[in-house]
């Protein structure tokens, strides 16, 4: 191989020439082997088509196009001058014999031209750029990924930036970026709200120029300290000049981020303390409202105070409207900062805002029960009420800039509404403010509700107190009534009864005076006039039919008048005399239904009129009077009867005793005469007569005694006497009367008895007589004497017919006789035991009987004994 071939073989490029006309390869160097694994012969034989088939399908179209274009250019006369310059360059893949793809870079140049100057053959020089290509590809991929990441990152940052910006711009605090020298490089929009300046006003300015001179040293110190400590924060409160010239308290929080490459400044946060202070004021207001809520129950007063508190802290005009259950306006409380505007504002509200058809205002609040707010009163809002041009006019005149209204709701009921109106130009109500207003409204509503509940309770209590008072009054009246009734039942004098009742009536009806009249001989006689505590004797007698009592007698009903001077029945003379202004006359009825008396009451206290309650009281008293009156009549009659009876008995017994006296005397005379003549028979009969006279005398005495006992006129003469002696005397006398009975005495008294000897004699005689009367001849009668500490018990026992248990109950009663008539041997009046028991009773002793039918009876009685002092000997031996 010569040098040329050697060089050709070593050249790392594939050199090939092919004819465009034939499509056949004219020459291919040996590097083909290295590059594609084929031998040159394969290419030579295969030709263009073969080679073309080795090209990667994706690259083929590009090669074909490029080649075509290149050829066109090469065939151009202009280019023809520049021979041997490569006219096409492309990179493509070819399949290696082994099957793998190989990147080739081929540059083609014109090899030969034909006589016409058209390209005849091309020389391609190709280099294996596979490695480079692979590397390129890798790089591309990396680059792509990197690009993607960068894109994402960028987006994120952009978003965050947006957020941040938004945050800053919408924050209530203002944020500024300050350089280490204090110059402001950026400030966020809220600064306008806080300090009134526009953002641009600040830029590049030294922030300290706005700080209050007094606060400047402190601020400067803080800044220098901050500069020394990167990454730290510090807070300082300073006064900053507002655009309008006033000083605003600002809380500045600065963070040193100078070192941070992304920030490179001090981040300062500005918070308007005024606003906070304003909110503090509002909070304070809330507290005060709550206090008022707790302290007072009279909400009308308190609401006024609250409205005064609200203006000017929360509004320039505040209106609180309360409604009742039917949504009717109950009360309105207003307060205005500027008194000159009050009438205007009132106008606006009264004529427009209260109406329910209005979109805004108390009317709509009450209807919807929802809070509402017009944060900024601008032209747009005013347009909505263009139907009412006057509203627009007034609103503008007032200078209303902001408004909020909240319903007052308690226990789920709408009880009113509260509206806040502001004329401040640079502040408007915000959602926050509305929330606050709702909070206040809640408290106010509670206050009103509590107050109403309290008032209801108070009213109920008052009502109950009224009822209690009435009850008390009634009770008192009833007490007076019952006391009066009780009192008069004891009284027997009709005048006293009536006087007592009139007194009670005066008290019960709160009258000043009163009188009573009693019918006597058809006339109504007024004897007494009661006024205050005085009882005046008057003697006024009215004919039947005259005066007030006349009409009462006629109608049998009460009569009252609350204007005595004009009354047709009231006698003018009497009216004047007693100063009667109003009166009531009430009748008292007797048992027969006829009027027997009347009450009249004058001048009810406190100029009150006589009414239903008075009538009821008087009815009660009238009834008591009727009964009491009846009682007196009955009692008097009864007394009279008794007196007559007793008088009769007294007289009768006296009359009886007179002849008895002479009878006794005559029989004695007879006895004396007969003794002289010694005629036993006559004497015997005279004695019989004498006995009868004796009995008659005894009966008359008993009768007399009974009548006197009835009159309680029985007189006892107490003396101390020997009881034993009395007994023996009596038995002696008895034995004389009846020889058919045997008397026995058991027991003997050591002391004397203190009693009316004669009466006790009577008692014992009476009992013995009964004993004799009711026992057989020859039976025993035993008298026992038992001495106790202070008394003696005397027992007289007979063995006669006895007294049944039934009769024992009644034997001591007046006029009671226990026995059947055929048993009687000595009929008596049956009053003996009554008198005896009365006598014993008057001696403070007791009398009783123990008896069994058919076995006999024992009568007992006790008498007081003379007291024995210590050491004294018994009186009797």
């Amino acid at each position, binding site marked *: 191989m010569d040098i040329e071939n050697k060089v050709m073989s070593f050249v790392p490029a594939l050199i090939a020439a092919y004819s465009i006309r034939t499509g056949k390869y004219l020459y291919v160097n040996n590097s083909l082997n290295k590059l594609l694994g084929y031998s040159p012969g394969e290419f030579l034989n295969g030709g263009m088509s073969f080679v073309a088939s080795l090209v990667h399908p994706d690259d083929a179209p590009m090669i074909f196009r490029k080649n075509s274009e290149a050829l066109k250019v090469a065939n151009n006369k202009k280019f023809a001058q520049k021979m041997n310059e490569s006219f096409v360059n492309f990179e493509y893949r070819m399949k290696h014999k082994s099957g793998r793809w190989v990147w080739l870079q081929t540059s083609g140049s014109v090899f030969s031209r034909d006589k016409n100057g058209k390209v005849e053959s091309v020389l391609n020089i190709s280099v294996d750029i596979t490695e480079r290509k692979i590397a390129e590809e890798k790089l591309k991929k990396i680059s792509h990924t990197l690009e993607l990441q960068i894109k994402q990152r960028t987006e994120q940052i952009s978003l965050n930036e947006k957020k941040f910006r938004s945050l800053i711009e919408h924050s209530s605090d203002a944020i500024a970026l300050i350089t280490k020298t204090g110059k402001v490089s950026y400030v966020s929009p809220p600064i306008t709200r806080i300090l009134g300046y526009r953002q641009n006003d600040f830029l590049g300015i030294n922030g300290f120029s706005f700080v209050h001179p007094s606060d400047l040293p402190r601020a400067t110190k803080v800044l220098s300290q901050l500069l020394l400590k990167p990454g730290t924060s510090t807070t300082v409160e300073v006064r900053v000049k507002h655009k309008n010239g006033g000083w605003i308290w600002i809380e500045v929080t600065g963070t040193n981020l100078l070192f941070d490459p992304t920030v490179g400044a001090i981040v300062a946060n500005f918070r308007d303390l005024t606003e906070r202070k304003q909110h503090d004021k509002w909070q304070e207001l809330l507290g005060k409202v709550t206090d008022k809520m707790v302290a007072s129950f009279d909400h009308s007063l308190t609401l006024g105070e609250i409205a005064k508190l609200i203006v000017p802290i929360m509004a320039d005009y505040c209106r609180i409207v309360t409604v009742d259950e039917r949504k009717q306006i109950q009360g309105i409380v207003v307060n205005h900062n500027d008194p000159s505007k009050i009438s205007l504002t009132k106008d606006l509200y009264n004529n427009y805002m209260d109406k329910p058809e209005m979109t805004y205002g108390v009317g709509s609040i009450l209807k919807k029960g929802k809070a509402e707010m017009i944060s900024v009163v601008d032209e747009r809002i005013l347009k909505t009420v263009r139907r009412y041009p006057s509203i627009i006019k007034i609103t503008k005149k007032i200078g209303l800039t902001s408004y909020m209204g909240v319903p007052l709701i308690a226990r789920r009921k709408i009880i009113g509404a509260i509206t806040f109106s502001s004329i401040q130009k640079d502040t408007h109500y915000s959602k926050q403010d509305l929330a606050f207003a709702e909070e206040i409204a809640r408290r106010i509503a509670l206050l009103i509700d509590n107050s109403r509940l309290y008032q209801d309770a108070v009213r109920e209590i008052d009502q109950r107190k009224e009822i209690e008072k009435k009850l008390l009054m009634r009770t008192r009246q009833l007490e007076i009534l019952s006391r009066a009734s009780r009192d008069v039942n004891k009284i027997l004098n009709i005048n006293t009864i009536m006087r007592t009742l009139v007194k009670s009536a005066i008290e019960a009806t709160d009258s000043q005076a009163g009188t009573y009249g009693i019918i006597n001989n058809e006339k109504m006689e007024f004897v007494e006039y009661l006024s205050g505590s005085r009882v005046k004797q008057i003697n006024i007698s009215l004919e039947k039919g005259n005066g007030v009592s006349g009409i009462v007698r006629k109608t049998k009903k009460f009569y009252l008048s609350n204007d005595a001077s004009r009354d047709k029945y009231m006698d003018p003379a009497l009216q004047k005399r007693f100063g009667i202004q109003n009166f009531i006359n009430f009748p008292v009825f007797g048992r027969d239904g006829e009027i027997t008396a009347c009450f009249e009451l004058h001048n009810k206290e406190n100029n009150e009129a006589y009414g239903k309650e008075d009538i009821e009281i008087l009815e009660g008293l009238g009834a008591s009077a009727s009964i009491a009156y009846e009682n007196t009549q009955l009692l008097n009659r009864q007394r009279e009867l008794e007196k007559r009876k007793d008088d009769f008995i007294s007289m009768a017994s006296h009359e009886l*005793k007179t*002849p008895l*006296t002479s009878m*006794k005397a005559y029989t004695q005379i007879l006895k004396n005469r007969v003794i002289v003549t010694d005629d036993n028979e006559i004497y015997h009969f005279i004695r019989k007569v004498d006995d009868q006279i004796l009995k008659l005398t005894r009966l008359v005495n008993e009768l007399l005694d009974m009548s006197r006992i009835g009159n309680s006129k029985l*007189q006892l003469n107490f003396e101390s006497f020997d009881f034993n002696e009395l007994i023996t005397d009596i038995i002696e006398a008895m034995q004389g009367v009846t020889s058919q009975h045997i008397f026995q005495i058991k027991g003997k008294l050591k002391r004397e008895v203190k009693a009316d000897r004669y009466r006790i004699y009577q008692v014992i005689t009476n009992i013995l007589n009964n004993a004799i009367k009711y026992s057989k001849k020859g039976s025993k009668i035993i008298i026992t004497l038992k001495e106790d500490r202070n008394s003696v018990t005397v027992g007289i026992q007979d063995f006669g017919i006895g007294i049944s248990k039934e009769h024992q109950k009644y034997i001591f009663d007046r006029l009671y006789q226990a026995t059947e008539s055929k048993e009687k041997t000595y009929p008596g009046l049956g009053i003996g035991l009554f008198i005896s028991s009365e006598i014993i009773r008057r001696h403070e002793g007791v009398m009783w009987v123990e008896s069994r039918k058919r076995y006999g009876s024992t009568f007992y009685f006790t008498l007081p004994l003379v007291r024995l002092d210590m050491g004294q000997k018994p009186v009797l031996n």
Partner: protein
Amino acid sequence: MKKILIIDDNEDILDSLSILLEDQGYVISTFTKGEDAVKKAFVFSPDLIILDLLLSGKDGCDIVKLLRKFRTTKKIPIIMMSAHPSAEKSAKNCGADDFLAKPFDIDELLGVVRKYSK
């Protein structure tokens, strides 16, 4: 002989009592009217006066008081009698020396007469 003056408006009592007492040996003078009796008392000079508390319409007490006024009659013992049981006290108050309750036992009467006519 002892003299007794009896004053009572009942004639039977006057009659029976005078017989009884005459039987006992007394000299009796009787009157139904008090004034007459008083007149007689001056003349009669009784040793004892028995009178009823109640004389027709007039009070026996007045008679007693009258008798007690005059020297001649003031020392004469007076016995009052009456059908009224409560008369005893009145009798004593009037100035009587003793009292008899009608109708009295004759023995009682005699006892009292004997006592005061001594």
